[in-house]
């Protein structure tokens, strides 16, 4: 029961960025270039929620709080939700459904190519996020969902390549992502070295 309440709190918190954006839009506080603000705001939200999603496993392993896993799907879906908003902003507000222009963009602009590819990779993850799909896919589910590493890296690269010169934010996201991935690498490295944990009696050493 307590977990349910906590889940509701996290859900509401996860939608705060959208609520704030809506509030700024309603009060006319999106500045001189509202479309740019909406694009950046939704884009930042995607990376932030991808990173939070990737924090679940380390938190669980470090604290032993196993219920943390129960938030992962919701957080991932929130990231996907912001990705949909970001993508919609691009095709509707930014490009205004200029299909040839968008195709050219995706083909010619590496940062858009990477962003678009990362968005596409999120779709199968969202589709297979239901409990039924988790059961049906079994072990393959986990393999499939490792795509989030690529998506998150793609998101950071997308941001990095689009800034004019000030890389401080994409760099910050990149460092956080690197730490989260390094944690996983360390865990799997340790898991693959069972020999170290085997006790070798001194007498058998020669």
């Amino acid at each position: 029961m307590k977990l349910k309440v906590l889940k509701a709190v996290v859900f509401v918190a996860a939608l705060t960025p959208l609520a704030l954006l809506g509030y700024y839009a309603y009060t006319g506080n999106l500045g001189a270039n509202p479309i740019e603000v909406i694009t950046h705001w939704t884009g930042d939200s995607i990376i932030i929620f991808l990173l939070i999603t990737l924090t679940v496993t380390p938190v669980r392993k470090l604290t032993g709080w196993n219920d943390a896993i129960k938030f992962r799907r919701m957080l991932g879906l929130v990231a996907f939700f912001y990705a949909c908003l970001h993508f919609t902003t691009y095709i509707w507000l930014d490009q205004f459904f200029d299909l040839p222009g968008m195709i050219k963009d995706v083909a010619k602009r590496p940062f858009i190519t990477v962003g678009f590819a990362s968005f596409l990779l999120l779709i199968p993850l969202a589709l297979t996020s239901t409990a039924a799909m988790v059961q049906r896919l079994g072990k393959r589910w986990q393999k499939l969902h490792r795509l989030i590493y690529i998506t998150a890296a793609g998101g950071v690269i997308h941001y990095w390549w689009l800034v004019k010169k000030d890389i401080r934010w994409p760099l910050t996201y990149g460092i956080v992502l690197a730490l989260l991935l390094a944690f996983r690498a360390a865990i799997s490295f340790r898991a693959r070295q069972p020999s170290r944990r085997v006790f070798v009696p001194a007498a058998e050493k020669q």
Partner: protein
Amino acid sequence: MLIKKPNDIKASEITDKALFLSRRRFLAGAAVAGATIAGLTNMDFFERSAAHAGEKLSGVQKSRFSTTETLTPLKDVTTYNNFYEFGTDKYSPAQYAKTLMPRPWTVAVEGEIKKPKRYDIDELMKLAPLEERVYRLRCVEGWSMVIPWIGFPLNALIKQVEPTSKAKYVEFTTLLDPKQMPEQKSRMVLDWPYIEGLRIDEANNPLAILCVGLYGEVLPNQNGAPIRMIVPWKYGFKSVKSIVKIRFVEQQPTTTWMKAGPTEYGFYSNVNPEVDHPRWSQARERRIGEFIKRKTLMFNGYGDQVASMYQGMDLRKYF
């Protein structure tokens, strides 16, 4: 009984009348300032004191070079700025440029000229009649505005300082003072001071102006107070702000953005819808306040006045 004669007050210790009056004025000013602080937020106080920003400029003439397009609202012109000395976020300059002190201010004009001189800003502002120039401004990032600048042609200054035959280029330098421009403490984004440059014929083009105001008033800090260039046929970053030095040189200057991204930013940086930025298209632009993007015009629509300067040049090579 010995009565000591009181020491005469030395003449040097008597406060000069003018100084006395100026101190009185200072005290009165301080009282007003104190009341202002008490009555308003700090921000309001600084906005009032930082410059003569907001002060009306008088005797401004109209110009035939002005466009009749709809003006971008003053609020957008003064809150959406690229001025990296105050942060890379476009809303930062309006917030942080209060620390810039546009008075006293001098501009050193030097190099390959017969009459090098350090101009006081107030002298410089009287060098030629002030004109209002309503120009399109196209940022390299893909947005644009229409702004009623106030200034005078740079060629009026050039004429006065008499360049020698060696003066092939003009190099402009922005103020370097991390106390006034806090982002200059870090060189992670750009190397300071900000350097820009023009070829001498570009500098002499009647469209190129030294700008001291906008919307009928003294230039706000975030827009490059007290004096900046406006080169309307080039991307916005060529219109260097808060200028302290104008140097006439023989060799093409290496500008700040050329140094920051040699493959992305060239010396010329003329607005050109056919030559894309390596990472994004320059074919269209979003006019601030409009929803659908509009087509970007060659030389930002100033081809009639400037295209002849680039005849025979490969504009893909000289981007």
